[in-house]
């Protein structure tokens, strides 16, 4: 185990896979000489050259499409989209093509493509650069969508994504790149899709989250713990496939569920989980399932407004205390 940032963990996974498999190549804007807009690919262009670390013009529809066409030939492209906001101009390629090709063509050709992209907000990037849209994609059959919260999972799940035969949207988070954590040294350390992790054990309520919100949830759990309330935190890690069993197991134990996410909760990841928890834990719930997410406004620029729009620890904590109060617990 070595401590490294989330960014370094991603870079190491890319480096390992480029070295392991000559069919793996990277494609994206500014990922070469510029080292990536968020420096994830730093050093890889020098090491592997311009064919395996291919710089592209600002043509997301073009190069996601090119990634699909190369993947159909058996290559394993890893496409970087600078931020998830820019994937919108290539939605057709992702939803109408990558997700449907294998099925539409009767299983005769697959698309082993990875699209890496960060979502998230918090640096005054405003409405067009501060979105968490992974829930939209997670609703689409044919895609796999993962959003790890820790460097070790980022490392292991990116390797799983690259080795997987299906198209994978790998969602990162702008704020998380500098977060540090231990990462296994084993170059074959992979983390399976469809398996959530209980990252903190507790007895009084379950907070379900993914991506950077898991780290916020852990801090909220620490705050609640000072008042004698023990929150269990479930990190979904992967949204499609979704591990609803681990979530249900936790809620059966704590009898209360709060789903936190950075995106908009309405029609969001929380909506899907709330439906499943109600079905799976109908007789175990001591309070209605609660959801908390980003304010349902386009992200504003001004700092006080942005802070008000983010699902910060204070908002998640307030939602948790409200949920506890619903079932008669105050602290």
């Amino acid at each position, binding site marked *: 185990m070595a401590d490294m940032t989330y960014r370094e963990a991603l870079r190491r996974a890319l480096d390992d896979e480029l070295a392991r498999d000559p069919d793996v190549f990277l494609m994206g804007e500014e990922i070469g000489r510029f080292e990536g807009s968020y420096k994830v690919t730093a050093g890889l262009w020098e090491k592997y050259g311009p064919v395996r670390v291919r710089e592209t013009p600002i043509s997301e529809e073009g190069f996601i*499409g090119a990634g699909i*066409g190369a993947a159909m030939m058996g290559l394993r492209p890893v496409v970087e989209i600078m931020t998830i906001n820019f994937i919108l101009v290539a939605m057709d390629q992702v939803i109408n093509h990558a997700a449907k090709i294998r099925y539409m063509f009767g299983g005769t050709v697959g698309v082993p493509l990875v699209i890496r992209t960060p979502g998230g907000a918090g640096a005054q990037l405003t409405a067009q650069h501060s979105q968490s849209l992974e829930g939209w994609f997670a609703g689409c059959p044919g895609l796999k969508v993962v959003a790890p919260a820790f460097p070790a999972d980022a490392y292991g799940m990116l390797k799983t994504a690259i080795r997987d*035969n299906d198209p994978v949207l790998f969602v990162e988070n702008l704020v998380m790149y500098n977060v540090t954590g231990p990462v296994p040294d084993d170059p074959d350390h992979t983390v399976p*899709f*469809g398996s959530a992790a209980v990252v903190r054990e507790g007895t009084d309520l379950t907070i379900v989250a993914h991506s950077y919100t898991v780290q916020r949830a852990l801090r909220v759990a620490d705050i609640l713990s000072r008042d004698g309330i023990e929150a269990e935190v479930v990190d979904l890690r992967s949204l499609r496939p979704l*591990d*609803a069993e681990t979530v249900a197991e936790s809620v059966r134990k704590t009898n209360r569920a709060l789903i936190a996410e950075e995106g908009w909760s309405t029609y969001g990841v929380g909506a899907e989980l709330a439906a499943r928890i109600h079905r799976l834990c109908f007789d175990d719930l001591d309070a209605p399932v609660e959801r908390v997410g980003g304010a349902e406004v386009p992200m504003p620029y001004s700092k006080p407004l942005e802070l008000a729009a983010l699902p910060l620890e204070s908002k998640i904590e307030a939602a948790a205390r409200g949920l506890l109060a619903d079932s008669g617990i105050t602290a």
Partner: protein
Amino acid sequence: MAKAAETATDVLPDADTARRLFRTMALIRRFEERTEEQYTRARIGGYCHLAIGEEASTVGAIDALTEGDCLYASYRDHGTALAVGSPPEAVMAELFGKETGVAHGRGGSMHLLDVPRRFFGGWGIVGAHLPIATGTALALVYRDQPHAVLCQFGDGAVETGSFHEALNLAAIWDLPIVFQIINNQYGMGTSVEQSSAEPELWRRAAAYRMHGERVDGNDVLAVREAAGRLLEQARSERRPALLETVTYRFRGHSVADAGKVYRSAEEIESWRRRDPITRFGLFCTDRGLLNAEEIEQIWADVAAEVKEAIDGALAAAFPNPDTLYEHVYGDPSWREQFARMRAGAPFGERGEERTWQT
């Protein structure tokens, strides 16, 4: 009375080639006519776009492909599949939604393909397969394979953003791909003049410093010559090109469109006089490549072949509804990955036994 080809008379094919080209075009014509009939008998559902009139543009270019080359097409793809040699019965079976169809009944009319013959699909979103075809050309270069990609699409696709992005990427990356505009002069009911600021579509190539060229798309030899030359240039010099083949669809946009509201009877008639198959037949008899009896025999042969295809496809089984969830994912571990997603899922998604009628 149709005139023999003028533009490519200097490219005299041998008798075998002439026979092959004529036969493939005739096969497509008969297949499409019978397809129209099958559609009216409700054996085919969904959209159904016929390529009657466009046979020379399709066949001429596809005949120029060599082993290892890859092909992409639009949703008007029945003729494409037949031209690459997919069995007519498997193509018709796909239109009927049968398990024996080229996409096992999952794709239908717009999503034919034949991966062993390197035909990577008919695609349903106008223009969107151009970047994908470009990626396939990139894969050929990546693996240092001496082949090229032929990407066919209609005139409507030229107005999409993907057209620009794909041609630009192909040019800056020196990819071996020929983009072929099968210009049938109407995107649904909207004419090229109405859609395009530059109705001479081939001129768009200049924006990418790419070779552009327009040929008579109803002259199978002209199309074959141009496509062959540009594909060879793509293979040997890794230079992309834009080829416009000007043709006309005798039918409407789809079988649901009579094709008469936006086109005059005179216009349709003037193009009928340039029917690519009649024209090539006359050329062949003029040059002694095929005689009238041989041509008659070919028509009889393809009619029998299409009849056989229909009979075989009719007799084939529909896919079993129990296979509904197959092919959504293909990784060996997908079932394991999704095992815990059934919990609390919506009705029907929990792996239930199907107790409801479909």
